[in-house]
């Protein structure tokens, strides 16, 4: 399993938070791909985190290698406009999980090939946390 661990942003002044995207670097065609967004507080102090929606909204964006959109978890989703305020103790993490069924936004199975995956966590608007893009290969 390929794991991307990327420091992406700072939500509260002086408090670094990590948003990590965890997924395998390849999957067999037709097999659902487990994808986890992990928000963690590696710092020594509690960090206040603002999260959108109830349940918390998080997005997974999958494109082809050339950037062509393939699938987006929140595409046309209706999200409640509530703002959740959570305190993340040092060393603790919140995880959001999804399984991509290897279908595009129209419900069509995607072909074998190379894809790009990005995780997005909407926070106090207009802010959002976004991971760096990770490669995913769909094998025959």
């Amino acid at each position, binding site marked *: 399993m390929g794991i991307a661990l990327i420091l992406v942003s700072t939500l509260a002044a002086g408090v670094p938070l990590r948003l990590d995207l965890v997924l395998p670097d390849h999957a067999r065609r037709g097999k659902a791909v487990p994808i986890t967004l992990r928000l963690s507080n590696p710092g020594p102090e509690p960090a206040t985190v*603002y*999260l*959108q*929606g*109830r*349940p918390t*909204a998080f*997005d997974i*964006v999958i494109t082809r290698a050339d950037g062509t*959109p393939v699938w*987006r978890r*929140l*595409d*046309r*989703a*209706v*999200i*409640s*406009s*509530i*703002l*959740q*305020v*959570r305190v993340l103790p040092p060393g603790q993490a919140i995880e959001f999980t999804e399984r991509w069924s290897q279908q595009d*936004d129209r419900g069509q199975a995607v072909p074998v090939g190379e894809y790009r995956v990005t995780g*997005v966590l*909407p*926070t*106090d*608007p*207009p802010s959002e946390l976004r991971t760096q893009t990770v490669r995913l290969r769909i094998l025959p």
Partner: protein
Amino acid sequence: MRTPTPVQALAAGTLILAAACSDGNEPTAPSNETPSAAMQGANQGAPDDPIALARGVPGFGGFYLDAAGKPVVYLKSAAHRARAEQALTPFLRSQGLAPSQLRVLPGRYDWTQLEDWFSRASAGVLAIPGAVFVDANEASNRVTIGVQQGSFARIRGIVERLGIPPEAIEFQETMPVRLLATLRGRVRPVVGGLQINFPGFLCTLGFNAVRNGQRSFITNSHCTNHQGGVESTPYYQPSQNIAPARVATEVSDPVYSQSKTGCPPGYRCRFSDASRAAYTSATTSTLGRIAKTAGPNNGSITISGNFNVTAEGSASVGQVVGKVGRTTGWTAGKVTNTCVNVAVSGTNLGQLCQTLVSARSGAGDSGAPVFKGSSNVTLVGILWGGIVNPNGSSTTFVYSPMANIERELGALTTF
């Protein structure tokens, strides 16, 4: 004290008494007088505070920089110029000025007198409607009282009874001082559109309402401890951190049910994402008011006034409606769809017969009042969600119409 910028002096003949009573304003020449050791020891103010530096100078009545940036001091006797120069030297040097540049104006009152009258005037008039500020004015050697238009006679009558020499007072007509409150700040009386908080979440207060004689506000059902069902959720405004006294408690939030007509299999539904909370007796609120920002779709959350609710109603496709929420402020756009059944992402909850609007919203806007108009407004519902575009943005919000809210919460008096 620094004087707030006066908007306009009142009629000079009656109000700017100070000028008429002033001695000749001829500057005096620099002096070679040497301050006594005792005097030097008395001048121990902070170097950036000329009033503190000079208050020990006999007959000192104020210091300021004139319009040209030149230093000016009021003294009851020009004989103390050298002492004033000495006392003010730290400040003058810090400003790149030479003590010899000091211009002395004849003062009628010393600073101790002005401070005493300032205290008396503050205590005597600031609580009177129409009084805006009181200032021991270092630039006029008088006590300046700022009053709103139409309040002068009343305030002057009160001042005359305080034992302050009338000629020591000058009045200035000014505008009332208003705090730049925001939708995310503490606002009393509580009105619609403000940030509210319940444990772990931030939402927006929709609108005030009276139900069976109970002073209340309406917000979303999902802005309660549990969406559907009453758990006596406590509310704070703007947040428990800032204002720890509870302002209201959830009293009505009908449960979601599968039996509603149009509810998809496996879902539980309602016709509105709405709940009602009853205010505590200690919390003031104003019925029929929604906080207003400077304009629609400009991103401002600074409160500039109020919308007045004058009616309840509904909106049709193509009509423009607005909302005020703690996150994105006042946004407005056209209704694109009415009576839409909506599945809420990540849940098995459905909202039946909702309205879609082409306008921006954001996390924290939940509960925002939705209305037609831009001054006297018709209340049409409360916002509860937004639709994510394929590019990840959200330019469509969803609201529960008033008819649905009152169908589930009962008849409400809203203005």
